[in-house]
């Protein structure tokens, strides 16, 4: 029994030892498995993980370049970059996003639109721990409120950045345009090109309209980079290497802010446009459409209500009348039609027409009325310009014929966009037989030519086109295409002249003769712009125009008074000055201004006086 017990005990021990040795072997094998695994990771795959670890630690961050500034011709800043503070959130660091947003809403006020934008931006592809803008343009008080409560707001930060600012606001809204946040569509467009994708990798805003869009390439600048070491939460620990961004090109425009602001002031309360061009260079001095809007509102994102107010306003403030508004040129076309007739030989300075107050085509009973019911009597070309006699031009237009008039007018840029860098400019309409047929309006009738003679009917021009034609007229047919950009980083911009042929007349003295006639529009006793005589600092050659308003829909929502006002004729004035050596050409339209001589002409004169007066003294 005892012996049995001893033997059992010995057997037990032996059995246990055998099992312990098996266990030890298994343990050692398993340890070798671990060591093998570690060797695989640390030796075989070392380089791969080395790279991964470096990529974790080191981030290449693009740095946005500062956008180029925009100056007027006198060095006055039109578009600048000012520091602004925005509220940002890193969602990864926020425990309860809804709670944080509710808290911030009480603290600094977050609009529904801000939240909507925030949601949209959150849904875009982004790096982890990249902050998302929640609200822009924090005031000093709001910054302080956020900073004081920072402890309760993990992941919330106030970031300083430069944002675009237009110090003159409305006055340059259309011509300069504005920058806005890069939206999904911009993003898709940029990403189509690898080079652009790289250049815009840190950029938040892009030119949306006007000069900002036209010269986006120049203004943007070159992106910079920094290699930074960050921790897992994206906090910057140190900058290892930095390649500075190259700021965008500073642009100097031909625009003269004195004239632009004056135009804005003079058109106050009206709808209309002013375009002034430096005759010698084609540089655009003024490009103004009224009413304007505040472009700064678009930089940080305009609220839906404000935007709706702009788009539904009867005055269409977002519409650039100067470059996109097309109006019948009316009587302002007469100097050009007159030259066309002279060139065609269908009139001369001595040719006279009897104006009984109306005109009739052969074999046609229809009366084409002169604006003066009783007629101008016996009229020659000069008098027809001075008094704006319609009958005279009905007559010469018909005798010159559409095939003679249209090509000649075309040389002045009508029916085409001649501008180099006015992004929004449209072509207007220069009608001819082919145009009428291809647009489905039927064959060309002699009556169409009659109407064209006084700039009515199908003909339509933008204020920019009329100003351009006036500048070419003032320059005696020598073309300088209209342009906005004068210099890049103070280096004068040379535009290729292009292949636009200068206009030569068979009889060169016709220019001077026409200038004299246009002089008499102002200085003559019966001149349609004789109201300008009282204020005549500089000799002005000009021409009035009264465009009939057609095609306003009889909308019941308009109250009758407003409707009445909007049915009045548009008032045109085109002019250049001084006459002997023209420096400035101008076109002014005042919608529903009725009397061109009393509404449009004084605006043109004030701008001419400011320009020439300022230049001389």
């Amino acid at each position, binding site marked *: 029994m005892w012996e049995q017990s001893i033997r*059992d005990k010995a*057997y*037990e*021990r032996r*059995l*246990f*030892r055998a*099992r*312990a*040795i098996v*266990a*030890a072997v298994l*343990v*050692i094998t*398993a*340890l070798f*498995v*671990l*060591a093998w*695994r*570690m*060797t695989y*990771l*640390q*030796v075989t*795959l*070392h380089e*791969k*993980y*080395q790279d*991964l*670890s*470096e990529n*974790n*630690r080191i981030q290449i961050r693009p740095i946005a370049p500062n956008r180029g500034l925009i100056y007027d011709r006198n060095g006055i800043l039109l578009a600048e970059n000012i520091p602004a503070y925005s509220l940002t959130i890193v969602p990864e660091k926020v425990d309860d996003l809804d709670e944080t947003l509710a808290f911030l809403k009480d603290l600094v006020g977050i609009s529904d639109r801000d939240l909507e934008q925030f949601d949209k931006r959150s849904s875009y592809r982004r790096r*982890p721990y990249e902050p998302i803008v929640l609200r822009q343009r924090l005031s000093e008080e709001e910054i302080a409120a956020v900073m004081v409560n920072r402890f309760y707001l993990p992941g919330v930060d106030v970031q300083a950045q430069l944002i675009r600012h237009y110090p003159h606001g409305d006055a340059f809204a259309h011509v300069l345009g504005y920058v806005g946040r890069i939206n999904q569509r911009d993003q898709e467009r940029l990403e189509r090109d690898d080079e652009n994708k790289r250049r815009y990798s840190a950029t938040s805003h892009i030119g949306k309209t006007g000069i900002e869009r036209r010269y986006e390439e120049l203004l943007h600048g070159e992106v910079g980079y920094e290699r930074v*070491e*960050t*921790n*897992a*939460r994206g906090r910057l*620990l140190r900058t290892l290497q930095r390649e500075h961004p190259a700021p965008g090109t500073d642009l100097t425009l031909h625009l003269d802010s004195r004239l632009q602001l004056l135009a804005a002031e003079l058109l106050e309360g009206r709808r209309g446009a002013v375009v002034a061009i430096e005759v010698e260079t084609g540089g655009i001095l003024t490009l103004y459409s009224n009413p304007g809007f505040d472009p700064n509102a678009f930089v940080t994102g305009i609220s839906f209500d404000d935007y709706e107010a702009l788009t539904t306003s009867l005055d269409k403030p977002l519409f650039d009348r100067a470059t996109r508004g097309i109006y019948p040129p009316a009587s302002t076309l007469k100097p050009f039609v007159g030259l066309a007739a002279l060139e065609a030989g269908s009139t001369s300075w001595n040719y006279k027409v009897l104006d009984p107050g109306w005109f009739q085509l052969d074999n046609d009973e229809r009366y084409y009325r002169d604006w003066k019911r009783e007629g101008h009597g016996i009229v020659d070309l000069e008098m027809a310009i001075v008094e704006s006699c319609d009958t005279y031009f009905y007559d010469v237009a018909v005798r010159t014929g559409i095939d003679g008039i249209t090509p000649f007018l075309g040389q002045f840029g009508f029916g085409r966009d001649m501008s180099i860098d006015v992004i929004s400019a449209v072509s207007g309409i220069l009608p001819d037989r082919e145009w009428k047929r291809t647009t489905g309006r039927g064959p060309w009738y002699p009556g169409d030519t009659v109407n064209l003679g006084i700039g009515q009917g199908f003909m339509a021009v933008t204020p920019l086109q009329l100003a351009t034609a006036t500048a070419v007229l003032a320059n005696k047919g020598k073309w300088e295409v209209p342009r906005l950009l004068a210099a890049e980083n103070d280096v004068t911009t040379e535009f290729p002249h292009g292949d636009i042929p200068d206009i030569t007349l068979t009889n060169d003295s016709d220019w001077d003769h026409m200038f004299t006639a246009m002089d008499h529009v102002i200085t003559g006793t019966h001149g349609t712009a004789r109201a300008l005589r009282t204020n005549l600092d500089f000799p002005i050659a000009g021409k009035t125009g009264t465009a009939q308003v057609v095609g306003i829909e009889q909308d019941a929502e308009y109250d009758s008074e407003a409707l009445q006002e909007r049915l009045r004729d548009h008032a045109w004035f085109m002019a250049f000055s001084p006459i002997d050596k023209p420096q400035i050409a101008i076109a002014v339209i005042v919608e529903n201004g009725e009397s061109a001589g009393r509404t449009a002409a004084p605006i043109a004169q004030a701008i001419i006086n400011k320009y020439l007066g300022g230049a001389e003294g």
Partner: protein
Amino acid sequence: MASTDFSRTVSTPAQHHTFERSGAFFAKLHIDLILFLLLCALMVTGLSILYSGSGQEMSMVKRQAIHFGIGMVLLFIAAQIPPRVYQLVAPWALGAGTLLLVGVLVAGVGAKGAQRWLDLPGPLPRFQPSELVKLALPLAVAWFMAKRPVPPRFRDLLAALLIIMLPTILILKQPDLGTSILISTSGLLVLFFAGMSWLLIFSMITIVAAMAPVMWFFVMHGYQKQRVLTFLNPESDPLGSGWNIIQSKTAIGSGGIHGKGYLQGTQSQLEFLPESHTDFIIAVLAEEHGLIGVCLLLLLYALIILRCLYISSRCETLFGRLLSGSMSVTFFIYVFVNIGMVSGILPVVGVPLPLVSYGGTSVVSLLLGFGLIMSMYTHRQRK
């Protein structure tokens, strides 16, 4: 190996005398000097890695040192208690533990959809009954098997399996898959050391393997399946549940052979590595000390486990041998599961690296376990 005494082979004759004397002194204190020294070396190593892994927070290192202190006191006390006391307590401890597990399911508290804690009344801390069962189950199974003939009969094995299964199922219900597997393994290891036949062992392995698909569809919870899926393909969700394993592998791999230097690990120090002071602490060592550091740590663990197995085989009682053999290998399984998980050969289960990861409960229960092993080895029955 069975006849080799480490204390004699590693010491020169000159040192022999003093070493032997101090060995004898420690024997009176019921402490195995070699195991004690190895554990001290592991703890010192652990503290130094923890300093780096905690983001150089000295306060955390101090708290861990306090955990070690408490654990050593418990180890010392546990070593003084003779094995027969444990043998007496064993069934009652498992009974109590099982009741508490039922209590957890009925009135337990927890987090993330799992009930693991029991709120004790008054000032007592929260209590996790599964920690008690970790010790109680091998104790109870060893107690049961030690009274039966060796090698065990089939019906005894079946009875032991029932003892193992009851707490396992209760923990599985919490649900805590990892702990239930580890606890049942510690019970099964007792059967292994008791001499369960190889045929039965392989049959069981086959059955378990066949059960795996059943487990997947009927037993495992969504988050557990997610862990397994992430383990199979961590890149499928690099910022979500795959983040941990990608970052730990990056930390390990980027360490290379020599490592980036102490406190120089960018993955650890720049917070890319999650849980760098607890479950993923081995990645800190691997990144900063490289393959060499890892191998030295593995060697240290190997020495501890081999010493444990050696002294297990030298225990006087069958109960002692079964208990300490099972606990030694369970200790190794913790090491293997943790390092396997961090290095991406096992799915992510919340198992700390023994005596290196930060955490009071784990440290205290591990050192208590070593106290039990020392008790089994050092107490001689005098009849």
